């Protein structure tokens, strides 16, 4: 089997695995051995859900190849903490971490931390500020900042650490803030963690496409999803990977999928047989870089996906090879970027010559 250039990746949302250590371990191991490339962890404000970033961290040492990508809010969180936590997740996962940057649209989230509720275009402003802070902090230690130079007694080279001096732009709807830096942890293993966001948050007057590495695309029905993927790609350009969002309910255990329908999520929903889903994903992956599956029941759908859907997609060459000892950036075919501050140093040195 050779991987074609059109081959895509599959992500699975593991929110249903909850916080119980055994169920979380089993779910993420099952997803990895099924051949999923990415596990995502929703930070849903529902009873019984532990912090998404910590669930991803817990899953790190028990897995080897699957990328671990938690949601973390940008509006009501301290950006400095989020940046540090995500960089740390990259260390504990050996470079398999990513970030689904969300913008909480909930009065409850605001009240929990005593902030005023923000809505509308302020959400994208908050997301943009938070992502920019994290990206600067991840670059604030150059890759070779830890030198351990016994002769001069220096553990780090201070010329390779940088203040980030972030200030929110003047037009911010909510209260402005600043972040000094540098980060309190060295540069993440990937240099920059891949950042994902909902496609609806990216574009004109919203998050710049440059701020994100991939977008999550939703459509009302499976039929409309491929067209939406193409439209988003045309709108945002080729530098952003496009990931289609799909709810999945499968015929399983002698029961028709249609008899197990839960409430609508607002995402396209595939209801039917494993064979039908295989054909559908095969065709969708010709347009999208990846598809994220939201199984109706982790316990039931994961079994069907692992036994019937992913193996067949693999045989058809529709899937990228899993990342063996690689990073999430490798999976997304992203170069490992140099620190922006290293570049500015080079430029400054060049200018002086």
């Amino acid at each position, binding site marked *: 089997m050779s991987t074609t250039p059109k081959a895509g990746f599959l992500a699975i949302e593991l929110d249903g695995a909850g916080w119980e250590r055994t169920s979380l371990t089993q779910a993420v191991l099952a997803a990895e051995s099924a051949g999923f490339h990415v596990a995502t962890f929703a930070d849903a404000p529902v009873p019984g859900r*532990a912090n998404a970033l910590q669930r991803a961290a817990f899953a790190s040492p028990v897995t080897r190849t699957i990328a671990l990508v938690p949601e973390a809010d940008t509006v009501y969180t301290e950006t400095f903490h989020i940046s540090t936590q995500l960089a740390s997740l990259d260390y504990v996962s050996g470079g398999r971490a990513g970030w689904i940057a969300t913008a909480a649209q909930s009065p409850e989230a605001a009240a929990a*931390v005593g902030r005023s509720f923000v809505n509308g275009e302020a959400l994208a402003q908050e997301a943009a500020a938070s992502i920019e802070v994290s990206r600067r902090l991840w670059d604030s230690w150059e890759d070779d900042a830890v030198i351990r130079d016994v002769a001069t007694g220096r553990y780090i080279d201070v010329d390779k650490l940088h203040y980030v001096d972030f200030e929110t732009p003047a037009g911010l709807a909510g209260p402005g803030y600043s972040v000094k830096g540098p980060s309190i942890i*060295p540069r993440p293993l990937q240099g920059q963690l891949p950042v994902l966001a909902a496609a609806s948050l990216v574009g004109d007057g919203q998050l710049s496409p440059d701020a994100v590495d991939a977008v999550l695309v939703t459509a009302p029905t499976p039929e409309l999803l491929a067209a939406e993927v193409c439209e988003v790609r045309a709108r945002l350009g080729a530098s952003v990977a496009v990931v289609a969002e799909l709810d999945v309910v499968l015929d399983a255990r002698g029961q028709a999928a249609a008899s197990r329908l839960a409430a609508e999520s607002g995402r396209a929903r595939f209801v039917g047989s494993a064979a039908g889903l295989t054909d559908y994903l095969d065709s969708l992956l010709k347009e999208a870089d990846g598809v994220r599956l939201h199984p109706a029941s982790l316990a039931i759908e994961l079994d069907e996906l692992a036994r019937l859907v992913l193996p067949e997609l693999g045989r058809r060459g529709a899937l990228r090879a899993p990342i063996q000892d690689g990073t999430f950036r490798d999976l997304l075919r992203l170069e490992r970027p140099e620190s922006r501050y290293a570049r500015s140093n080079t430029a400054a040195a060049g200018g002086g010559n």
Partner: protein
Amino acid sequence: MTQHIHAKYQPSGQLQFGIFFQGVNSGTIWKAPESGSQTDFESFRRIVQTAERGKFAAFFLGEGLRLREHLGRPHALDVVGRPDAQTMLAALAAVTKNIGLVATQNTTYNDPADLAHRLASLDLLSGGRAAWNVVTTDNAWTGANFRRGGYLDHADRYVHAEAFVETAKRIWDSWETPAGPAHRVVHEGRHYTVDVTPRLPRSAQYRPVLFQAGDSPDGRDFAARQADVIFSAHPKFDDAVEFRRDIVARSLAAGRGANDVQIMPASEFILAATEQEAQEKKAWVRSLQIGPQQAVAYLEQFWGRELSAYDPDGPLPDIDPVVEETSETRGSGFHGAKARQLADQWRAEAKERGLSIRQFVTSKTARIDATFTGSYTAVADHLAEYARVGAVDGFNISPWLIPTGLDDIVNQLVPELQERGVYPTEYRGTTLRENLGLATPERSPELIPAAAASVR
């Protein structure tokens, strides 16, 4: 020798060990060939699994929310740059079974609802092994990294911290049963407003264990009211006994039992088969902890100026400091010293004792009071005396090498202590509370049926 701490205090006759993975400062040697990575997950896994083999009660991670600076730039000479405590501990929860996982977390630059939720998450993911080491660092310099900048008066830090901790406890108390329902928690304070319906049930140990390290009278009272364990700065025997008496009195005054607040001082162990080898090892450790550049830089902090022209093996600088008072930028332990007065005093002291810059700084920075040096058997005998009297409940050990710094302690000292009957041979249970012998908290009746708003 002191026989009785207090009429109401019952020594357990036992000691527990914790390990404090520092991740910053000169205590960790980075210059030796065996000095490992400070950030790779494998360093953390190796040392936590070593500690668990040695039946350690707890694994501590520190936190500092701004990099320490030296003369206006990040301090270059010591180990620096560490992972987020809770993210690392959540990963370590997956590769350990019994050891407690203690995250140092700040009350000034966190939101109570968010921090309480993350600690509850760690507690559940670890099966009831999480703890929070409550710290209250507050200054505008650290605040420069946060939305909520330098907003808090230093004098208010414990008032604020206590309101924060009480709000966190109410959040952890909020589920009526393991299946719910959850009660809304509302707190309107001077610095924070919290209005949240908590997402997580109580853990196998009810809620995270609370550690606290404040040493001022306010800090001690805060700990006596709120903490389960004090991470103290009083490891020396007589001092430890005095500290225990003080905490017992404060606990009783706060309406808690004489044994309710445990004490684990910060400590360092330099051990070998014989006393002489241990002393030789100590000289080697000290020479690597405080190198010539670090010795000069240490003085530069207090002088506020470059002193690189001074020979580390010569006398202290004859010029005067250019600052009135040292700043907070080197960490809170250095803050606010009166520079000139200190310089005069140190010059006199070094001259009288005939010490060079390097020797003098080593004598100041080495944890003289906190270091146990000697043969395995002699140190074990000494520690057994702490257990007999009940001076401490255990020691929180800072290894000077990562990740091999506990090997000696686990392989040699622990068996000696076990033979003396003062150290556990098995974990008592699976939760941190069980392993420390702490009582399970009771759900506060005033929280039922609904949380009332409190104003503080």
